[in-house]
């Protein structure tokens, strides 16, 4: 059954969209990530214009983050104070990102920037995750207890001003660290259409030193506001948010995520992380290949009303 997407201005099969949503939802449930890093390239691949893919993905991520944060909220595993600080940075970063995206589209370089950001970020995070998972598997194999996490921040973090106390996370750290992380993730949401969890979660653990229990909940909490900001800004400035596309993917995504969560119980933590790392690296490799390989047609066209 074909459905005409009013904003993307293309006709797509409903079951393809639902299937994509479900597949990405399954993986996100399995790995506990948003799945934006898979969804945005897939949408572009099926013919959705990049600007519509990113904006619509931001809209969809609001719902995914809300449904994800609920369980953490009930377990009181959300550091609201920390989330608010990150959110302040995130609002600035995402506004900057929306402006940057528009400017790059006019220059004809937006697809290049999207691809390059994906390759760099996914490549880096994928390699780090793979190394970490491999170390964890080796440790378990040899029955070595995991190294205790260093409780202290690096020197350059300790000397930063504007220190704040975060009671839920039980840490005392300069507000500049979560603030700048927020700015960075804001830019990622606006340019790449990702929630940035794959980057935020390790950064919160290793850079800020937050307890693992509150990391995912807090990350989901703050990203709700960032994705809402991107959705609003894109709707007003570029009219590229396709609610019909967002809704279709949401339905598939919600169902897929439930199956994924159940499947994740059957896998070990390190195995899940290693699989996720391989998936992330595969996406990065595909995008890198597309950048390096000689395109079938060196020319492309972009339209604008006269």
């Amino acid at each position, binding site marked *: 059954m074909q459905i005409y997407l009013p904003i993307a201005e*293309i006709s797509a099969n409903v079951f393809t969209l639902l299937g994509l949503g479900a597949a990405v939802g399954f993986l996100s449930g399995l790995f506990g990530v948003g799945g934006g890093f898979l969804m945005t390239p897939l949408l572009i691949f099926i013919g959705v214009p990049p600007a519509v893919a990113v904006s619509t993905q931001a809209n969809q991520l609001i719902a995914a983050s*809300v449904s994800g944060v609920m369980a953490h909220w009930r377990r009181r595993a959300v550091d609201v104070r920390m989330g608010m600080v990150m959110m302040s940075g995130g609002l600035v970063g995402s506004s900057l990102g929306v402006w940057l995206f528009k400017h790059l589209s006019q220059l004809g370089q937006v697809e290049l920037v999207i691809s390059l950001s994906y390759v760099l970020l996914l490549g880096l995070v994928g390699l780090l995750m793979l190394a970490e998972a491999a170390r964890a598997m080796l440790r378990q194999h040899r029955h070595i207890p995991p190294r205790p996490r260093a409780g202290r921040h690096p020197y350059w973090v300790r000397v930063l001003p504007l220190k704040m106390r975060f009671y839920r996370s039980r840490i005392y750290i300069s507000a500049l660290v979560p603030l700048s992380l927020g700015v960075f993730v804001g830019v990622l949401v606006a340019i790449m259409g990702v929630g940035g969890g794959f980057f935020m979660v390790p950064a919160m653990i290793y850079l800020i030193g937050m307890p693992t229990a509150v990391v995912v909940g807090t990350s989901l909490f703050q990203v709700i506001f960032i994705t809402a900001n991107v*959705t609003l800004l894109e709707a007003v400035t570029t009219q590229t948010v396709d609610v019909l596309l967002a809704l279709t993917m949401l339905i598939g995504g919600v169902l897929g995520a439930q199956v994924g969560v159940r499947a994740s119980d059957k896998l070990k933590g390190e195995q899940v992380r290693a699989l996720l790392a391989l998936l992330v690296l595969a996406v990065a490799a595909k995008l890198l290949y597309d950048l390096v390989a000689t395109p079938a047609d060196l020319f492309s066209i972009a339209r604008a009303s006269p």
Partner: protein
Amino acid sequence: MRCRCALALAALLAALLAAALPAPHARAQQLIADLSSHLVAITTGFTGTDVLLFGAVEGPGDVVVVVRGPEERVTVRRKGRVAAIYVNKKEMTFAAVPSFYAVAASRELDKIAPAAERAREEIGTEYLRLIPEVERDPQTVAEYRAALIRNEEAEGLYAASVAQVSFLGARLFRVNVDFPANVPVGTYQVQVFLFRNGAVVGAQTTPLVIGKIGTSADLFDFAHRHAAAYGAIAVAMALLAGWLAAAVFRRV
């Protein structure tokens, strides 16, 4: 002064009169054509459509149909290698490019009309007048022009081949004009030409409107006219959907 005014008025009246009276060999009489529909509605289930063009000719001749979509600015970009990767390096913008273009004819175009005639009426993609906004050397322009047409053809917005106008008997003709799912909206011009001995002896232009109708049109309109409200609703809808999903699956 007054005399001169009266003279001018008389001349104007004469000109109007001459324009209103039919010319001795009225071109329109030789050819009559119409469309099965003057409005193509893009609804939520739209997957492309075809419109029947039919008509009659007086006397022998060949029929050529040209369908042109509303004009737009198109930027053609050329990729080149920078370090190891391909990036858009050069570009050329064409000012008035038809967003859709298709030709149908009753015979091979070369046999119907000479190049000069086809160029004048812009029959066939090779004769489309595409002018770059910034002047460049002809060879470069030709390269970008070819790329533009190639890309439009790949998207299905320019017909890659000439469709067949079929005659039913000696006078009646018909042709189906195909519009793909990604057809741009706007007012199209359907031009019908009657050629005899390589010259146009009759011509007619019929407008065709392609527009979004129904839910998808309302959504598009709302998103553009009340952008802030649309954004707010999109956010609210996502918040609700997320909350609903969490609430439903909590009990499962």
